[in-house]
């Protein structure tokens, strides 16, 4: 497969970039932050996005989607990343819809996915139980109770957790989530840590579900979800959810990497503009070779990142055997790149970069949160080495 966008994807890219530039510029995120907006994104905007098919890019037409792929979702997310646009694209579509599509029964898909594609139902996946992404370290338990399950535990940093209508919860129906098995066997699929994991659909309104929003540095949405004997509906096969969880993480990471790439491009362009207008010592600071070489190095890292993001998305759409490797590759390269670009954006702006009024600070804050989500570069570097067999 060629590593270039096709004509339709190019058109989608231009229209998505124009859409976010006009309808959700960085000032929109500032407004959500400064008014402490309870939703954390604009529902009107989300309805418009859904109307364009963006909530169902990779969903089959039978479930109300447009039958494209993750590449298209990535193209839209990259455009959203440029303006730091907040929307349910990540939690509802990249995470939630991926999980339901991969694990759900025909009835569950029929019930949830068309409503997702229409922009009516919001989803998320509750995975994490601490400050770091450790997908095999799950203490939340699920106990069979007649036809359903009773779930108990505490989930942390659930994206859009405070607004999701249905939460896909990772819980343990068997096996141990103890420290030892968790640290030794990540991702192996047959270790004590990953065996016995299951997925459940939990209604936000169900008894025993307590949700508390968390205020984060990037002004985007996270929530703590506590379950105290809450009713869960099994999604997929009990105790055998790991391959689905692993795949959902890969897909969502590729989409997240696309968003991070878009943010990096915007922060970089902003910084280049500054180098071309700011004067010191009687010269534009962009004439200084000390800055020129660092700018050129950022350009190179961004170019490499474009390739790995497109490759990761295409690998998902082609169901390639190395899709997992490509997802971790993308997360490492893009995280390394974004760390560099976001730090340099502040440094090259000097004092003005430290002010709240200048946007580069917002890009830096989003950068670090996005890096941490679903595993930072260290986590994925380790996984990448493991997948390569060392």
């Amino acid at each position, binding site marked *: 497969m*060629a*590593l*270039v966008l096709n004509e339709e994807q190019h058109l989608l890219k231009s229209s998505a970039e124009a859409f976010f530039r006009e309808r959700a510029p960085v000032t929109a995120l500032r407004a959500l932050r400064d008014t402490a907006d309870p939703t954390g994104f604009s529902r009107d905007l989300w309805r418009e996005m859904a109307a364009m098919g963006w909530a169902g890019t990779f969903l089959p037409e039978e479930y109300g989607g447009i039958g494209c792929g993750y590449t298209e979702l990535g193209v839209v997310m990259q455009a959203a990343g440029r303006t730091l646009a907040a929307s349910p694209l990540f939690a509802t579509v990249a995470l939630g819809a991926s999980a339901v599509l991969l694990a759900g029964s025909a009835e569950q898909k029929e019930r949830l996915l068309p409503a997702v594609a229409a922009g009516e139902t919001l989803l998320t996946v509750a995975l994490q139980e601490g400050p770091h992404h450790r997908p095999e370290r799950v203490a939340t338990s699920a106990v069979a109770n007649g036809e359903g399950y009773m779930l108990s535990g505490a989930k942390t940093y659930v994206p859009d957790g405070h607004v999701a209508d249905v939460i896909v919860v990772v819980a343990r129906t068997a096996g141990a989530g103890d420290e030892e098995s968790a640290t*030794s066997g990540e991702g192996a699929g047959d270790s004590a840590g990953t065996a016995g994991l299951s997925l459940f659909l939990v209604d936000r309104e169900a008894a025993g579900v307590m949700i508390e929003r968390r205020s984060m540095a990037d002004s985007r949405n996270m929530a703590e979800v506590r379950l105290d004997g809450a009713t869960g509906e099994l999604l997929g096969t009990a105790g055998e959810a790991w391959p689905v969880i692993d795949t959902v993480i890969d897909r969502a990471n590729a989409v997240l990497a696309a968003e991070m790439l878009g943010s990096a491009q915007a922060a970089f362009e902003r910084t*280049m503009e500054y*180098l*071309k207008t700011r004067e010191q010592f009687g*010269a*534009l600071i*962009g*004439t*200084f*070779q000390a*800055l*020129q*070489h660092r*700018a*050129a*190095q950022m*350009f*190179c890292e961004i*170019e*490499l*990142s*474009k*390739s*790995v993001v*497109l*490759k990761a998305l295409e690998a998902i759409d082609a169901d390639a055997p190395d899709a997992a490797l490509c997802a971790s*590759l993308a997360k*490492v*390269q893009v995280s*390394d790149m974004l760390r560099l670009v976001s730090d340099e954006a502040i440094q090259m702006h000097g004092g003005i970069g430290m002010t709240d009024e200048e946007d580069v600070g917002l890009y830096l804050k989003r950068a670090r949160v996005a890096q941490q989500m679903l595993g930072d570069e260290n986590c994925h*570097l*380790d996984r*990448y*080495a*493991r997948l*390569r*067999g*060392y």
Partner: protein
Amino acid sequence: MDELEQFRQETRAWLEANCPASMRVPMKTEDEVCWGGRHFEFSSDDQRLWLQRMGEKGWTVPDWPVQYGGGGLDRKRVKILHEEMRNLGCRSPLSSLGILLLAPAMLKYASEEQKLEHLPKIARGEIRWCQGYSEPGSGSDLASLSTSAVDMGDHYLVNGAKIWTSYGDKADWIFCLVRTDPDAPKHEGISFLLFDMESEGVSTAPIRLISGASPFCQTFFDNVKVPKANLVGELNKGWTIAKHLLQHERSSAASLGATAPGSRKQSLQEMAVDAIGMKDGKLDDPIFRQKLARFHVREQAFTLTMQRVGDEMKAGADPGPASSLLKYYGSETNKERRELMIAAGGLDALGWEGEEFEEGRLARSWLRSKANSIEGGTSEIQLNIIAKRVLGLPQAD
């Protein structure tokens, strides 16, 4: 059977019949590379035969037009030929700076007469070329070169010295940048000349490098007479040709950084596993493992970028801006690879002579790689070009 499949079968049959068995095993040393030229000493009769047969077929340069000694094949057929050569393990019949560097510039800028005169000899490996670019006083600032060519009516008189002339002592002809207008701004007084290294007044002296090898020479010109017909392109417009040629040089240097498809040499990963060992499914050195993984991420990201740039060019994009990025990143990546090989191998990798060290193969390749980010425009020059031409950053007066 479609035409391409038929071509594939015919090609396979021809290669099987014409590629000698000894030309189907990997080369053990650099000495087995075939460079061709008037005075080339073939390492075996098979090597001579293989070059001759491929040359007659035009398959040393399968994509060139037939009248210039090429095979006249389209892109799909060239790909098939390369695939079939790879499948049979056929060695490249000819390595040539003429093919790699000079020909792309000749095809674009030379007269029809010049093309017909020089290109077929390059294709058949009859004439070996060297490049006269850098001078002792003009390295990164190449356009400041001072080798002069003075118009003497029926010929140019060339005086000066070049340095880092690759295989200057073995080459038959040189393509050379000379100053033809000393009063013009530095980029506007340069011309592109071709001449025979056997001309009176040409002499060379090899330079011994840190790797122990001497692939480069200093080359001296003392009143060398060059026929005026040997000027390529317009007088004083040589810098344009020089830049075009450098872009090709950079693109080929870049491929050093990519993962070599189907390479038979032991990979860095295999070396590391052999030398360091595994424990619980992981390399038994967590710090080296981390460095190796980060290197692989960069190597793979770079390989994908080469592919993406190639795909974009096929779709009609301008390769110009990418060549500096690829040269910079490719050469830095190869240097990193060589460093990790030394680190993985430890003192075994620093052995210098003797069969147990393969005559210092790893150490010498590691030292050779240090030049990757110097030759063909240093890494710093590539970053300058990106800052200026791609990012449009303002330039100091």
